[in-house]
């Protein structure tokens, strides 16, 4: 057997400061209506990326995925907002006001995504759980977050197994009534197995002294750098407010 294990202290920012700053900046960006404030938000997002080391490929993929959703908005919102028509599609008008609104939403959405990617994405689930718990989020929500992260993978494997088993017996995915019926059955089976699993997990938790409270190893330490991040985030929120008032 090997010797005594040792563990190094967690370096870097306290997850609480990351969460609080992300929350404050995101709310400020989400409620702004002016273009300068939204662009400032994008600037904050870009600055926050400095706090998430590397993983540029993953960022590009996620960003592309987010913007597919916004492309949908850009295509549909201008048809629903009245105003100066840029082009007409039969009786529908694609308006300039609608386009500007959709682009504004896209800018804000991207800003919020970047802020989260920079500040919250680097947190491991246990650290996120500890931070949420320390910030007063109810135990039940922290537990759900922790257990979801742990068992999502298991559910996916179970679903893959079920679908593979069905395919091996001649099931072909499609949109026929029979295919939908089979999907229904597979989903029902997945829920049944998830229920059995949850009962077993609960028993295992009880055996290890679980009494409904979320406890974690913590390891949170607020340092000067966290205060500096907080001050920077507050300055950012004030800047958004000033830009918003200036363009009102």
């Amino acid at each position, binding site marked *: 057997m090997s010797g005594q294990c040792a*563990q190094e202290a967690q370096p870097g920012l306290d997850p609480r400061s990351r969460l609080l700053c992300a929350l404050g900046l995101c709310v400020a960006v989400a409620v702004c209506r002016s273009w300068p404030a939204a662009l400032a938000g994008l600037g904050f997002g870009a600055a926050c990326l400095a706090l998430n080391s590397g993983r540029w490929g993953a960022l590009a993929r996620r960003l592309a995925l987010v913007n597919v959703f916004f492309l949908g908005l850009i295509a549909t919102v201008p048809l629903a907002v009245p105003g100066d028509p840029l082009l007409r599609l039969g009786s529908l008008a694609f308006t300039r006001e609608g386009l500007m609104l959709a682009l504004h939403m896209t800018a804000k959405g991207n800003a919020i995504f970047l802020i989260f990617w920079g500040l919250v994405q680097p947190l491991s689930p246990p650290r996120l759980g500890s931070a949420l718990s320390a910030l007063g989020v109810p135990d039940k929500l922290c537990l759900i977050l*922790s257990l979801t*992260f*742990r068992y999502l993978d298991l559910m996916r494997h179970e679903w893959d197994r079920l679908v593979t088993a069905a395919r091996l017996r001649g099931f072909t995915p499609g949109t026929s009534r029979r295919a939908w019926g089979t999907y229904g059955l597979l989903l029902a089976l997945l829920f049944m197995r998830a229920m059995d699993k949850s009962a077993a*997990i609960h028993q295992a938790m009880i*055996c*290890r*002294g679980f009494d409904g409270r979320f406890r974690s*190893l913590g390891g949170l330490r607020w340092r000067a750098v966290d205060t500096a991040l907080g001050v920077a985030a507050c300055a950012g929120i004030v800047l958004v407010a000033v830009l918003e008032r200036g363009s009102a």
Partner: protein
Amino acid sequence: MTLVELEGLTCGYQDRVVLADLNLRLDEGQRLGLAGHTGSGKTTLLKAIMGLVTPTGGVVRILGSECRQNGDFTQARRVLGYLFQNSDDQLFCPTVLEDVAFGPLNLGASQAEARAVALECLSMVGLCGFEERLTHRLSGGEKRLTSLAGVLAMRPKALLLDEPTTGLDPESKARVAEVLRGLDLALLVVSHEWDFLTQVTNRYFTLSHGHLHEAAEAPHLHHHVHSLGDLPHSHD
């Protein structure tokens, strides 16, 4: 000191009797092995001791005090460590260190104490360096050893192990056996692998038709062509 005592324990599901009028005693330092066919009630027996299934009759005593309701078993669960058959049921925290520290934190240890106990138990099972690994990405053997570390972190007096070698490769099995042999704890091991039982326990029982039978002589692995080849038996 007697840790677990079962007297006339009867358990069943609907109209099927799984355990019938069963008696068993586990004393401090004893190492009992229990074998039986699938569905013979081995897991039900362990769950009844932990208070996870309600018996239809009989008495369960842990450390001399009778346990009937869920509340009575709370104290018992501090003394008895139960290793589940499926490690995925037991590893519910995202990372290894958090999972092993789960029990001590629930028992009131401070964060620093829980961390120290968790690190010590990980070192006991030979998993140093696994602290920040994600539990769902571990191999079968690593999952089993992490679960064992999690149970040991509760500082139990006895371990109840349900098929600890299921699904493990020979190397992992040998490692689990080595860890168990090195523990100074009472053991009640359920397994259908006699060779594993002979490595970690020294008294053997079989469970069939709801009754326990103690094997008269120490079982050993040998090859047979007759129908009792995989069951303990004598040749007189």
